[in-house]
């Protein structure tokens, strides 16, 4: 190998630099977030919690395409309860605490879904209310 003396220390520095966040946090991932359950006391969701935790984004995309692109605006029925296929009109009805439910995990995992660029959170919807 050419330039052994520069390449190997260089590689070592590079690896150290890339893994800096791990060392900086002392190899701990920090406290695991505990999203708050629906304030209205609902226990049932459209799918079991574990499945929702893993796949809620897939479900939301499916709902979106079904409602917008395939005119599938009919609601889904789970356990005798009707849910419209909607983030703003279904999910947020129970999970009205977006800041403590959605954001808690999203911030931890450093994902920034663009849902809220358009969809109103309950807090935002209430911020500009009808005055009359």
């Amino acid at each position, binding site marked *: 190998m050419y330039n052994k003396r520069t390449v190997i220390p260089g590689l070592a520095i590079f690896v150290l630099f890339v893994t800096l966040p791990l060392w900086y946090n002392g190899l701990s991932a920090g406290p695991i977030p505990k999203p708050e359950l629906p304030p209205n006391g609902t226990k049932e969701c459209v799918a079991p919690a574990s499945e929702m935790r893993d796949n809620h984004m897939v479900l939301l995309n499916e709902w979106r395409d079904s409602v917008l692109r395939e005119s599938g605006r009919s609601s889904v029925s789970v356990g005798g309860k009707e849910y419209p296929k909607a983030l*703003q009109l279904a999910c947020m009805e129970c999970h009205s605490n977006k800041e403590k439910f959605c954001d808690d995990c999203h911030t931890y995992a450093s994902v920034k879904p663009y849902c809220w660029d358009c969809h*109103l959170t*309950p807090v935002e919807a209430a911020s*500009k209310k009808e005055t009359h």
Partner: protein
Amino acid sequence: MDNQRRKFLKMAGATALAGISAPAVVKLTASPALASSAPAGHGAATQDSHAQPAAHGEEAPKGVRLGLLIDMRKLYGKPELMDKAIAACNKVHNIPHYDDRKNEIKWIWKTPFENAFVDQSVYHSSKETKENDFLVLCNHCDEPPCVRVCPTKATFRDEKNGIVAMDYHRCIGCRFCMMGCPYGARSFNWFDPRDNIKEYNPKFPTRMRGVVEKCNFCGERLAEGLEPACLEAIKETGAIVFGDINDPNSEISQVLAKEHTIQRNSSLGTKPSVFYIV
């Protein structure tokens, strides 16, 4: 050594290229994607019209095609009624208000006859035509040029009801549809719309900066069994009629059968679904 590295780089490059283009190739060869790019129902409709070219614009009705009729006779001299319909739409759909023309966003608005109907003569037009504004909105064309030009299928014609809809999640903001639309029915969000919305309708989303938006024939309200917001706002006048123009028994079809109606820029072959009695 050097040779191997070159080989590796070549392979890596080729793999990356293949990786990037793979989704496009897969999508293009998978049949559902092809079906939606050249919709089957659409093809049938054009075939019909080709079969009888003499019957200008006549075609065998196929499925549901929602349409809207504006009876301007009931709105002459009453601009406040039109404003009411416009305000209802703005409120229901969280449409921002800008004072300048440049950033304006409008789904339904009023405009003089000569602007609404550019291919109709305005020489010696009647007093009513001259003095009144006309309500205009997206025509939900049967042959929509905006859909034809969209590079991502963010705007598309819903085959189940004929609504020309927008998928704001997919729009890349190229504004090609605004170039294609011969009715000026589309608006672009030059800034974050939320700064200019006075009050929210909590049941409907807003839009985000950088996407195009337009009238959706109140698809979200129809699903709930409601009528379009503009119609509902001035329902007592009966100036707006909405329904399936392919169903001969619908109210709109019966009015269309009885009255002489005109359409905007019908010579362009877009087959609008909005009709006017003037």
